[in-house]
């Protein structure tokens, strides 16, 4: 096995076209890296534009072509060869460590020292000026760096290019195609174009596909005040977010399960499903991990609920000193919003799999999960006795669900954490698993004391 632990592609021969497309993709990466390490700010406008557009086009074009040659040709099927041999996707592989460090480092700088991203911000600035008339450079923002424009672009690019990869990789499964097009659409339109456009129009970046508690600060008193007294679009946004958060979520989850949001709409999910796909098998499947998950995710939900209610009550009948309220708000933003969702959530992809945040931290996922488990028609059906206990389903579950545990006992899978990505069904070599909605009476909820085989059970 040692001879191909460091290669990035399977050891089969690459065609000339594949090499060329890899070259173009490499050029894009080079333009991005060189540009963000030392962007020649002094470049005249035209060259700065050329650089930025060249980077964008070679990343998208090269990426699309490369993944077409890698996954888009010949018979379609599951292509997981070498995932546990290649050091970038191996558990604790050398490349995985490096990638993990780079991602994590990038996030830390992004959140707390954006000025070090000067070159990156300058590199993509011409694009934002051109498209939306926005800028992240201090000379245009009134003295501070706004790295979120550049970040939004990179994030969307990752979803786009890796989304194309996913579309080729699972081209034989229509559910995967539709679902991936959906997350790509929501990222590009709802998380990139629309907020940028609105920000350019009236100064507020509004994300219509996020709502409380993932978008926790919508219900913080300061936002409630600005939104409800803002322009029509802000008011609309406030009520939209509120309607989606309460009746919307309940109704949609009843019919479709948690997946309608987590693997069809959400941006965090969108990145996990596309850029995170090569790392999905790294999630921990042990019972222990499940126990930790239950405490953590419900803990976060509890904290944000208490915090939100507390702040709103305090707004009416102020019982807390102002600094306390602000401190709590900032503390949550720092610990959960930045460290957990951002740094750990994405930075740790190559080490703990693609859904660390969604699984252990996201309060939205917690709510949807409770609904899914107790009040939804969704389940994964196990097909009679066809399971051969091979373990592919559990291995490729990004949420760390031990799917096989249920499948080999001919039990349906009803788990709060399941985001309905459908990959267990895709990788199952015996057609054992199917995501579907059906009468709630037949879905068998299984609780955590699963490993005790009951004595003298009928």
């Amino acid at each position: 096995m040692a001879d191909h632990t460091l290669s990035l592609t399977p050891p089969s021969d690459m065609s000339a076209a594949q090499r060329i497309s890899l070259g173009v993709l490499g050029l894009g990466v080079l333009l991005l890296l060189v540009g963000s390490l030392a962007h020649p700010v002094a470049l005249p406008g035209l060259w700065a534009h050329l650089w930025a557009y060249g980077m964008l086009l070679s990343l998208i074009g090269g990426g699309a072509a490369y993944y077409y040659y890698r996954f888009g040709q010949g018979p379609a099927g599951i292509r997981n060869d070498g995932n546990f041999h290649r050091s970038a996707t191996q558990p604790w592989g050398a490349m995985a460590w490096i990638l993990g460090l780079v991602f994590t480092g990038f996030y830390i700088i992004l959140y707390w020292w954006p000025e070090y991203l000067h070159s990156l911000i300058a590199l993509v600035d011409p694009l934002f000026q051109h498209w939306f008339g926005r800028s992240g450079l201090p000379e245009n923002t009134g003295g501070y760096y706004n790295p979120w424009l550049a970040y939004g672009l990179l994030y969307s690019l990752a979803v786009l290019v890796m989304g194309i990869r996913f579309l080729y990789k699972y081209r034989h499964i229509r559910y995967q195609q539709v679902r991936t097009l959906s997350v790509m659409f929501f990222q590009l339109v709802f998380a990139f174009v629309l907020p940028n456009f609105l920000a350019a129009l009236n100064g507020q970046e509004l994300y219509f596909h996020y709502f409380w508690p993932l978008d926790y600060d919508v219900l913080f008193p300061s936002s409630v005040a600005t939104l409800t007294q803002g322009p029509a679009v802000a008011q609309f946004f406030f009520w939209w977010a509120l309607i989606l958060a309460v009746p919307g979520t309940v109704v949609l989850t009843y019919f479709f399960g948690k997946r309608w949001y987590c693997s069809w709409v959400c941006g965090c999910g969108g990145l996990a499903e596309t850029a995170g796909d090569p790392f999905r098998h790294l999630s921990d499947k042990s019972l222990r991990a499940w126990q930790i998950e239950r405490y953590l995710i419900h803990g976060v939900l509890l904290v944000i609920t208490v915090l939100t209610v507390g702040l709103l009550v305090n707004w009416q009948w102020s019982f807390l000193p102002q600094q306390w309220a602000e401190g709590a708000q900032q503390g949550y933003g720092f610990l959960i919003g930045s460290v957990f969702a951002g740094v750990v959530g994405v930075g740790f992809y190559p080490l703990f799999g693609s859904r660390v945040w969604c699984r252990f931290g996201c309060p939205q996922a917690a709510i949807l999960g409770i609904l899914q488990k107790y009040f939804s028609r969704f389940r994964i059906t196990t097909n009679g006795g066809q399971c051969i206990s091979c373990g592919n389903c559990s291995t490729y579950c990004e949420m760390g669900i031990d799917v096989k545990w249920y499948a080999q006992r001919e039990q349906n899978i009803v788990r709060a954490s399941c985001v309905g990505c459908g990959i267990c069904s895709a990788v199952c070599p015996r057609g054992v698993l199917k995501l579907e909605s059906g009468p709630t009476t037949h879905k068998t909820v299984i609780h955590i004391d699963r490993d005790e085989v009951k004595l003298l059970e009928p």
Partner: protein
Amino acid sequence: MSFLTRDWRYGPLPRKIETMRIVIIGNGIAGSTAARYLRKRADHELIMISGESAHPFSRTALMYMYMGHLRYQDTKLYEDFFWSKNRIQLLQDWVTKVDTATKTVHLSQSAPLSFDKLILATGSHSNRFDWPGQDLQGVQGLYSLQDLAALEEWSASTRQAVVVGGGLIGIELAEMLQSRGIHVTMLVREDNYWDNVLPKEEAQLIDRHIEAHQVDLRLSTQLQRIVGDEEGRVKEVVTDGGEVIPCQWVGLAVGVHPNAALAQSMGLACNKGVLVDDYLQTSHPDIYAIGDCAELRQPPPGRKAIEPVWYTGKLMGKTVARTLATTPTPYRPGIWYNSAKFFDIEYQVYGTIPSRPAAENTLLWQDARQWQSIRLHFTAAPPHALQGINVLGVRIRHDVADKMIREAWPLSKVMTHWAALYFDPEMSRSLTPALLDAYRERFPDAPIVPKKKRQLRDLLFFKP
């Protein structure tokens, strides 16, 4: 305060059964299933022995380990703590001898163990057919973890490989080797891949699929001999046509036979496998045999005496557990089913499908471009009772198929309820119209099956 802990609402506790020691030899799916269900139903002392691995794992996943889809630990049936938590004692050792008179199991490393009941679940061995050169280095079968380790070791120095055998393990070997960039030549004795089981049309679809994966498929070709180099490593094979194919590794995948050596040495009645009656009991009243190693004296209708498949091991394990824990239970496997995957094509079969079906018994629909095929097998006389379903590239619901075959549904009724059989992922292409067309073409006078309109509800719930 014992009344608080006792379940007083349900009357007296069940009569305490004398506990006994049950030893299981073999921790494959048959042995493991027996152990798990025994524990579920009774409080006996359970000891499961295997020389191959410390913990039960999935043999069917050997290929995925090699291809890097998963690791050995991912193929374990349960996390390690499961066994101790359920008081099933695991022992990694080889059984060398069993003394039936004193009811003692002798092991190669550990001290002898006495037993009250013994379950033999020793599995199979790969077949070999006295080919010249079959003992050369780099010539092997694929059955155990040890085989896989050997293959792993030879792979690094292998550029070309020959796989002998057109069966389930042969095609898995071809896929495995391909995934490492090793060029594979497959020698298949029959006219088409696995055509002693698959009807010709299905077999030919698989032929084309194998070739689409760049495997050099040689049909109607037999191995004549294997030739080695000076160091005793295989360097080429010679076919019955006299052709010489250079290779550095040869996989012999020409079936398996029951591993009955231990049973024979114990003096149990054996044929090819360990002979068992309806209750899976061997010729010794305290010894049972299950899984690949067992041979039924009287197989139930539609089933074979030896069935070396996963599902049979599981069913036999459940049955013997029930017999030993509570009530003597005859082995009643029900309607046959099986499944496999040929590179990218999933295969499922329910009921009986002969390999050479007569035209009047069969309805076939194929879409070669999508690698899909559906075959229904039924009685020739009206109302054409359903007997079997064979599908490639399509997933079918087990419980529905089982019901239709068990209750011998007339074909027209099957057609009317066809959509209920689908198990393909939501949003997959519906095959109902195509299949109905095939049905109408075949039976122009048959009662027209009402074509259900696709409703908004179906769309909403992703029904095909």
